[in-house]
């Protein structure tokens, strides 16, 4: 009998609540009991209320225990954890945990299963199948497969990936780039981080396929510095991919080349906007560019560039491996496939829910999420990051679908959902939206740069009860100016959380209160 395989996540979030201490304790306590174990540091399953989640391989499948503290490990081993025995922390088979069982893991199929940097694990679980298939296809066939899948950009805007790729493919051959936007700066989103820490080879594979598809031999991943663990894992993954000939001068032994570089951001939210990101990649301030020209025509260094989010690129390998139809048959309306929703903030069962588009907001927050962490009633949720709308529970009927959300004056964005309980003061949240915009604006457009500062002041006057009606009117005018007069989503969408807070929670703007901070 070989050693018992024990899994303890290496994901930064799992580590943030003690996974390293648990791993150390397991090795120590197993040694004390003379039990032969093999410890695997996997990605996270994305059920953060159960982290650190320890899994043990048994003949019947993986059995989960959690949340485990280092102090529990001795008693767990005595209870027979290494044989999958019952214990108050035992959750049964991992795959049977209700929140996980109901999901459709398409992009996240491998996250939490493997050692993220194991080449053998990657190939044994279907890794490289998409790239191998792509190498046998013409560029047009690859692009058509992506178009047929209905895949839309996961970064927030939801632009059809195939159309973007087609545009770059149609440009005359020459220097072209693939630029991966891994500057996941929206609060309430962490799926990119989990993917890069939990299955980094998938992103590498997706980038290589994108390069083959559009005729680009060079790729850049722009990752935020706020993710030190992801930077380290992805950096190692790129090195390993080179060593194994997955990228480099000869992709998988063919005459196709693809060079991949990792670039680290430096604490600027606006660099998550694609043109600001390109400026930053070129070594400049992250000032946004006017569009057109689109990056697909004139992107990095003025050359045709595919700019895609991490999850967009990481979804391409399984689409090629399983066929466009396998993805397209999931979803609703023009929102095809799955989305990796992220349940965040004041939520009991926070984490990742990958499921087909069309699931309702209420199902996600209440059924998957189990309501608030505080136990108080939900009052508001913000969907799609700091530039997304605040919605009341009366809109929990909304299906997660780009068009349905747009029609409701909201946005799906990157699929992050931040839950607030009844203690939230929505006037403070509206004020914060403006404050955040003032802090992070690149400064190019006056309505954004100056408007956000004025927005904070006007909301302060409203909160203080100064000339309320006139100031509410002024705020509406200001929002209109920001929407109409800003080049990018920073100024253009900051009014979304502000207006939605006013619309759905007007009572919070009616009592005179002290101005925050």
């Amino acid at each position, binding site marked *: 009998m070989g050693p018992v395989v024990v899994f303890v996540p290496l994901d930064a979030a799992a580590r943030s609540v003690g996974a390293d201490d648990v791993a150390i304790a397991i090795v120590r306590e197993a040694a004390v009991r003379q039990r032969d174990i093999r410890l695997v540091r996997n990605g996270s399953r994305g059920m953060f209320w159960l982290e650190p989640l320890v899994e043990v391989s048994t003949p019947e499948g993986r059995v989960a225990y959690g949340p485990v503290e280092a102090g529990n490990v001795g008693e767990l081993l005595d209870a027979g954890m290494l044989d999958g025995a019952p214990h108050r922390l035992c959750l049964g088979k991992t795959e049977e945990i209700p929140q996980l069982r109901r999901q459709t893991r398409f992009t996240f199929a491998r996250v939490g299963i493997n050692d993220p940097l194991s080449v053998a694990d990657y190939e044994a679980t279907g890794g490289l199948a998409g790239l191998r298939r792509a190498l046998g296809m013409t560029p047009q066939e690859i692009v058509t497969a992506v178009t047929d899948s209905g895949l839309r950009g996961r970064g927030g805007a939801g632009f059809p990936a195939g159309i973007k790729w087609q545009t770059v493919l149609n440009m005359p051959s020459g220097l072209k780039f693939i630029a991966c936007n891994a500057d996941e700066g929206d609060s309430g*989103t962490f799926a990119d*981080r989990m993917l890069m820490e939990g299955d980094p080879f998938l992103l590498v594979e997706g980038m290589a396929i994108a390069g083959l598809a559009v005729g680009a031999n060079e790729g850049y991943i722009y990752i935020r510095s706020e993710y030190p663990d992801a930077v380290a894992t992805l950096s190692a993954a790129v090195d390993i991919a080179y060593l194994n000939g997955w990228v480099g001068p000869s992709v998988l032994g063919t005459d196709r080349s693809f060079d991949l570089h990792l670039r680290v951001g430096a604490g600027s939210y606006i660099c998550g906007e694609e043109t600001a990101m390109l400026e930053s990649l070129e070594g*400049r301030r992250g000032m946004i560019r006017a569009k057109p020209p689109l990056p697909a025509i004139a992107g*990095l260094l003025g050359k045709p560039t595919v700019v895609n989010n991490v999850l967009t690129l990481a979804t391409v390998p399984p689409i090629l491996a399983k066929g466009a139809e396998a993805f397209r048959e999931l979803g609703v309306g023009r929102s095809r496939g799955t989305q990796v929703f992220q349940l965040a903030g004041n939520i009991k069962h926070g984490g990742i829910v990958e499921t087909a588009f069309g699931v309702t907001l209420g199902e996600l927050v209440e059924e998957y999420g189990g309501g608030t962490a505080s136990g108080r009633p939900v009052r508001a949720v913000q969907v799609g990051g700091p530039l997304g709308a605040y919605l009341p529970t009366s809109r929990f009927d909304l299906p997660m679908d780009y068009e349905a959300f747009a029609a409701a004056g909201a946005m799906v964005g990157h699929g992050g959902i931040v839950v607030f309980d009844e203690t939230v003061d929505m006037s403070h949240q509206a004020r914060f939206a403006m404050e*955040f915009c003032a802090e*992070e604006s690149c400064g190019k457009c006056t309505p954004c740069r100056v408007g956000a500062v004025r927005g904070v002041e006007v909301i302060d006057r409203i909160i203080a009860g100064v000339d309320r009606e006139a100031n509410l009117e002024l705020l509406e005018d200001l929002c209109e100016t920001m929407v109409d007069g800003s080049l990018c989503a920073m100024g253009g969408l900051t009014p979304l959380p502000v207006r939605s807070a006013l619309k759905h929670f007007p009572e919070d703007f009616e009592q005179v209160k002290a101005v925050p901070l």
Partner: protein
Amino acid sequence: MVSKTRSSYVPWSQERAVAIFERHRTERGALMPILHELQDVFGHIDPRAVDLVAEELNLSKAEVYGVVTFYKDFRSEPPGTSVIRVCRGEACQSMGAERLARHAREHLAVDFGGTTSDGAVTLEQVFCLGNCALSPAVLVDGRLKGRVDEAGFDELVAASRTEAR
């Protein structure tokens, strides 16, 4: 990036800076990787580094200075022994991050961006560390912490002060 402590930084050295420059010379958009490595090695972007980089990359000093000051990560002054970054994103706000942010400033008696008088801790605010289901989040010298309340914050500060000794 953010993972080093001051004790591992080296004093300014023109030779060392030139070596960094040489390593990145052929990269596209080399300025950002150069600035990151300069800060990793020296702890901050020394004014002499700005002059050197401008000369080597054939940029104006204003351009280089403009880049250094645009990005929050790049410092013009050395940081404290530990750098503690408190997340103020919406997800963390929903779990009391504003209270934690106030407490952090009071406990350390510095504002965001400041360093305690004993040089032990630099306190910074950050908008999202990607730990939004385990809020409030804090990053201590590159190590992510979740569900940090006021007492937990004080423990983190005490631990990093002990570690520094």
